[in-house]
């Protein structure tokens, strides 16, 4: 279903509305009233959301009508095109496509994104850059929509880098704080490193598939087009094209979706206003990597190596980030590491081949993570914390902020995987996927990966429950630690209050969503006794059309194992937090754990410092050396050195201009002597030329020269001395000294005169045309002088145009004949001599070999030109 007959304009409009909102608010927002800015900013996304719902409904309708690969498309225009080595034009179309995958994603982006816009109306109401903020937010949404709806890699890449730009602008939104701005830059550069991978991966894909469209690439992947080995690979174990392409693409995913090694930007991204964090972490940006993997799932699944790398990376990231989250003090920071960790879960699901499960976690995560961030924002708004809020200065907020508290609790339950909340279903499916791989019997690599993932993710899930409820208990239970009279006086506002409706309504919607949206993914076999609830989970059925992946297992043991582990992890995590932190105000872990280890983890495993020391500083040093040496070393080599040379030469020459007359006189004498010496002996030289069909010999001119000619060099001069330097002789057969064979290759333009004898001699024709030997499997051609003419022995080579090959071929003097692709002409050579006498009476002689023009004997008609100069 690559070509859709009808153009769905709504797809374009979904993108254009936020884009227009961004343009208007960005250009004129500063002069518009705040109400209008909010109306445009929120309204644009709201309209997009409505359009997205309408499109989704018609998509849904198509599916219900039995169209399996239902999709809506809109072809906007051709952006540009590439011409592949095969000569085929590969167009890059600005084309949008909504199928089951991008449809869901569009709803999430516009829906949750819209709620975040609404929330920002209240949250940002007192900020100076209100209009700017909404412009960025709208641009962010538009970029994400381009990313999601783009039907080809380059168009997706526009959105991909677009969200990178917007995150740069939004993280650094409060640019007056230079550290915030630096965090924005870090995000952009880390993303750029990933974009480099996407770019290269994209080239490999288009090189093989001959198309940038996702659908075409997936078709090629399904038909095994990427299974060939990667060409020109320097090592023994050759990876498949799919592996190399997927790993490059995955590098991009680690940048955008904050996985090891490029995750470091995301925690710093807290510098932005809280709605931005919600937008980045929940609805947009970080989900892009998972989205890309799902979009190209047939490609990814065709490379076991890449899948294993993804699963292991995801698991490690999930663990690493979870350990850091356990130790942090600040709300947004904990949530940020929680996002990194949850993204690890999603990639682990992708890596074990359960794309739909990974994407289901994207979907549920969007609800609870948005709610958590907005809840954190609501807390910060209420206690007037700027930047971030230290949970040890909070506590007991459930009294003051009931709505925030209850929605926050819902989301914590969901992320921890409390039964029947959304996270329960999605996390369960991921563990199920890992378990399914662990119990495979055909592929030892994937079995290992499966066990690693299963155990790692279970540990991760335990920590998830733990750190989330640590956050919840320390924030909402116990006593408020910044109340008047408590703490050290560096706390927050003493009178927290519930946030305005524009902020609490999104919280309620998202909190409820966090609880219930998981029911879309109720598995078809319930754990425990194995009830068949339905033929299929709704989610799996819906996604199946656009996402590849393994079948979920039917084995009850595997299902029960995964569910049991998930349930156990949740209970241990929440239970431990309950014991340690409920109504408490201190951190027992920080007190009990070995100081060094705790500090190391608290310092985020010192990864930033590691990168600084191992990557950034060396590059910076090289850059400094280059920057310094460019104008000293390189410039010195290319400008100062030559200029010094010139100056030095000038100084040497200047020595002679010293004004000493004796020196000048000396120079004059030497000069005169040199000139005299030159005139003492005459200079003899002969040239041949053709003047109106007559052969002429021309001797070099000179003052007072006289000439005497011997045209055939028989020793007898043809006449007396004369001053005429041009001489027109006539030659006959008796004057001919030698017969030579001229051979020329018209293809290469190379030619040669071969000297012949009475004996057969092989002609080295290869030197004229390298193809001669390769093309003709013949014996070499030989030539000899025979009865005053030239005879060739062809040895199987063909006379041009003749069908048979005579063994011997007599050539006519001066007449060209074609042998295969070479031209052969026998020619005759004479020797001309001139004697020159100057005024001093000195005599010089010059002789020259001349080849007579073709056909000169018997009919003269062509040019006479010298061949080799004989010594005078």
């Amino acid at each position, binding site marked *: 279903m690559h070509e859709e007959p009808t153009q769905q304009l709504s797809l374009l409009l979904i993108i254009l509305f936020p884009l227009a909102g961004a343009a208007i608010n960005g250009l004129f927002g500063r002069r518009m009233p705040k109400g209008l800015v909010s109306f445009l900013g929120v309204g644009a996304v709201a309209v997009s959301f409505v359009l997205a719902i309408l499109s989704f409904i018609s998509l849904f309708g198509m599916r219900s009508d039995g169209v399996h690969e239902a999709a809506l498309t809109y072809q906007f225009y051709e952006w540009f095109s590439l011409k592949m080595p095969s000569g085929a034009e590969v167009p890059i179309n600005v084309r949008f496509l909504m199928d089951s995958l991008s449809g869901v994603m569009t709803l999430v982006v516009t829906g949750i994104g819209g709620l975040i816009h609404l929330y920002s109306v209240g949250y940002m109401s007192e900020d100076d850059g209100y209009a700017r903020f909404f412009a960025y937010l709208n641009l962010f949404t538009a970029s994400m929509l381009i990313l999601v709806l783009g039907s080809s890699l380059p168009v997706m890449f526009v959105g991909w880098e677009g969200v990178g730009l917007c995150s740069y602008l939004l993280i650094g939104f409060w640019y007056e704080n230079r550290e915030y701005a630096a965090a924005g830059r870090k995000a952009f550069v880390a993303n750029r490193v990933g974009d480099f991978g996407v770019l290269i991966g994209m080239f490999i894909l288009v090189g093989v598939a001959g198309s940038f469209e996702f659908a075409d690439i997936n078709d090629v992947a399904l038909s095994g087009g990427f299974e060939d080995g990667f060409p020109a690979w320097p090592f023994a174990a050759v990876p498949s094209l799919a592996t190399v392409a997927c790993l490059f693409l995955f590098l991009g995913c680690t940048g955008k979706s904050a996985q090891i090694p490029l995750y470091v930007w995301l925690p710093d991204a807290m510098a932005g206003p809280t709605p931005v964090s919600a937008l980045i972490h929940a609805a947009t940006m970080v989900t892009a990597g998972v989205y890309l993997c799902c979009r190209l799932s047939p490609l990814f699944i065709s490379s076991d190596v890449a899948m294993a790398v993804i699963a292991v990376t995801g698991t490690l990231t999930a663990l690493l980030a979870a350990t850091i989250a356990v130790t942090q003090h600040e709300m947004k920071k904990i949530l940020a590491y929680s996002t990194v960790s949850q993204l690890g879960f999603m990639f682990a699901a992708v890596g074990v081949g359960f794309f739909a499960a990974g994407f289901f976690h994207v979907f549920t995560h969007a609800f609870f993570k948005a709610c958590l961030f907005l809840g954190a924002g609501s807390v910060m708004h209420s206690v007037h914390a700027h930047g971030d809020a230290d949970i040890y200065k909070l506590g007991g907020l459930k009294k003051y902020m009931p709505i925030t508290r209850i929605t926050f609790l819902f989301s914590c339950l969901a992320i921890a995987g409390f039964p029947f909340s959304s996270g329960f279903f999605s996390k369960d499916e991921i563990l199920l996927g890992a378990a399914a791989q662990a119990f495979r019997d055909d592929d030892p690599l994937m079995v290992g990966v499966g066990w690693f993932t299963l155990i790692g993710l279970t540990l991760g899930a335990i920590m998830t429950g733990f750190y989330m409820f640590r956050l919840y208990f320390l924030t909402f239970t116990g006593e408020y630690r910044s109340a008047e009279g408590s703490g050290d006086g560096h706390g927050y506002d003493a009178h927290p209050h519930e946030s305005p409706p524009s902020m609490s309504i999104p919280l309620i919607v998202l909190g409820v969503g966090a609880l219930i949206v998981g029911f879309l993914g109720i598995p078809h076999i319930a754990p425990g006794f194995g009830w068949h609830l339905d033929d299929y989970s709704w989610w799996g059925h819906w996604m199946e059309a656009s996402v590849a992946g393994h079948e979920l297992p039917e084995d009850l043991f595997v299902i029960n194992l995964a569910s049991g582990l998930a349930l156990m992890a949740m209970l241990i995590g929440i239970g431990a937090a309950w014991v340690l932190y409920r109504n408490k105000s201190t951190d027992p872990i920080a007190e009990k754990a070995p100081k060094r280890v705790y500090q190391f983890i608290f310092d985020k495993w010192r990864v930033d410092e590691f990168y600084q020391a191992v990557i950034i500083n060396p590059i910076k040093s090289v850059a400094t050396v280059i920057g310094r040496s460019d104008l000293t070393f390189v410039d010195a080599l290319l*400008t100062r050195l030559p200029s010094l040379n010139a100056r030095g030469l000038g100084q040497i020459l200047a020595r002679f201009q010293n004004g000493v007359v004796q020196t000048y006189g000396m120079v004059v004498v030497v000069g005169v002597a040199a000139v005299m010496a030159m005139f003492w002996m005459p200079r003899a030289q002969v040239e041949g030329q053709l003047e109106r069909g007559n052969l002429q010999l021309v001797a070099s001119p000179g003052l007072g020269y006289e000439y005497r000619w011997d045209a055939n060099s028989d020793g007898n001069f043809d006449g007396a001395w004369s001053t005429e330097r041009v001489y027109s002789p006539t030659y006959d057969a008796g004057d001919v000294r030698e017969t030579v064979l001229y051979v020329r290759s018209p293809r290469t333009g190379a030619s040669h005169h071969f000297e012949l004898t009475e004996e057969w001699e092989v002609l080295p024709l290869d030197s004229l045309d390298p193809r001669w030997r390769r093309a003709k499997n013949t014996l070499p051609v030989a030539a000899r002088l025979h009865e005053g003419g030239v005879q060739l022995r062809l040895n199987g080579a063909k006379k041009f145009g003749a069908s048979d090959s005579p063994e011997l071929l007599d050539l006519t003097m001066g007449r060209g004949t074609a042998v295969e692709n070479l031209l052969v002409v026998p020619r005759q050579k004479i020797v001309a001599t001139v004697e020159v006498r100057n005024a001093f009476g000195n005599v010089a002689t010059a002789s020259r070999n001349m080849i007579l023009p073709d056909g000169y004997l018997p009919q003269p008609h062509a040019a006479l030109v010298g061949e080799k100069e004989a010594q005078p």
Partner: protein
Amino acid sequence: MMTHTLTWLLLVPLLGSLFILIMPKQNEGAIKGASLLIMLGEFLLSLRLLWADYSTAGYRFVEQVTWVESLGISYKLGVDGLSLWLVLLTTALTPVALYASWGGVTTRIKEYAFSFLMLELGMLGAFVALDLFLFYVFWELMLVPMYLIIGIWGGKDRVYAALKFFIYTFVGSLLMLVAILYIVNTYEAIAGYYTFDLEKLTTLVLPAVPQYLLFGAFAVAFAIKVPMFPFHTWLPDAHVQAPTGGSIVLAAVLLKLGIYGFIRFAMPLFPVASQVIGPVLAGLGVLGIIYGAYAAWVQRDLKKLVAYSSVSHMGFILLGLFAMNRHGVSGAILQMINHGVSTGALFLLVGVIYDRRHSRMLDDFGGLAKVMPWYATVFVIVTMSSIGLPGTNGFVGEFMILAGSFFSRGTVGFGNTWFVMTLFAATGVIFAAVYMLHAVLRMFWGKVTHEENEGLSDLNRRETIALIPLVALVFWIGLYPKFFLDKMNPSVDAFITDFSVRYQESRGVSNPRIVGLQAIDPTDGGAYAWADDKGDER
């Protein structure tokens, strides 16, 4: 008038400069207005070039008049898809540069306007000349006004910079002149008459060794102009010292002549040498990408930073050009326009802040976004274009160039030099973000740390008017490059086909000859055409 568009295109700045010469010196306002009007008229006139059919290759608006008959020198002009956009870039950017200059240039207004018009004449002439002699004349002609612009209206070390610029470029040009004379002479030896006509000279097939030497001579001249690493050291000096307008024209147009020289002259004339040495130059381009980016990163002078970023960007263009496939070459030409627009705009923006603060040192700034919000906005937009963010012009060019290099020799793999070069070149995308965002961070973000910066005024009307067309082009090329590519692609296709044909013709040749001419080979002893031999057989 319509029949001699190109001649008029050259006459307008020439007559215009003469007109400026007779205007009274004191009347500066009138001189400014008149020179700008002349250039705008020139721009409108150049739009006429768009009204031609570029769907096939070949020269349009060709004019040919014999100049020196005995030496075969003719006044021959023409444009095709390769030069069309460069001509338009020149006519569009020169008025912008002149207009932007009036912030910093306050003395000798008349001479400045005169120099600018002469400069425009030289640049346009070099782009449209199809006769090697004529090309050389224009090539040298533009050197003089640029020398004056840097040397008279430049900064503190202007004389050194101007001299360095002049000598550096001139040395390269002289080598090229020698090479041109050699070709013409060789042609004469075979054909029996002299000609400087490019189309005739490209039929001359030379053996490998002279090709290498001659290509080397041309390449040095062009590589200096580009500038290609390691011949780039004149550029930072020239840029830092040149007045804003000079920097804009230097970056936007003058550097392009180097690349254009490769496309129009060096590569068609010496296909074998291009094929062999081309990858080396592409490799130097890649080196330049990284080297320029590194050097840019540690600069403290904003203008120097932008100058080194030019070295990096021009490296991309070299890479695309020598990839010798459609998207590589088209991408290179498009990227020339892009670089002209974005780097031109960057120099303009540097000029804006220099006019206000008389400093370009990054240490002297910080927090300007608060003080000059529109300035910051435009700066960030142009930065994104320079970085190559999709949706802006830079992306399309870089994408095409990288794709060109990636697919340059068919196969892909780590054993393939082009693949490895593509990988390294693509890291330039990362470093571009590093150094440009470094500059943005130091300039605009943070608090205003210097009191002098607090009262700075935002973009004024003149600067805004000068910037608007550039920003519009950033998005136009970024979003709808097809408009530009469609006009150049047929010519690029033909360029590549012709190149491979000529390459085949001149491979393994041991004596010079002329394709399509009955060769009179000096050692042949007489002409003998292959066609005649077939006749003999019958």
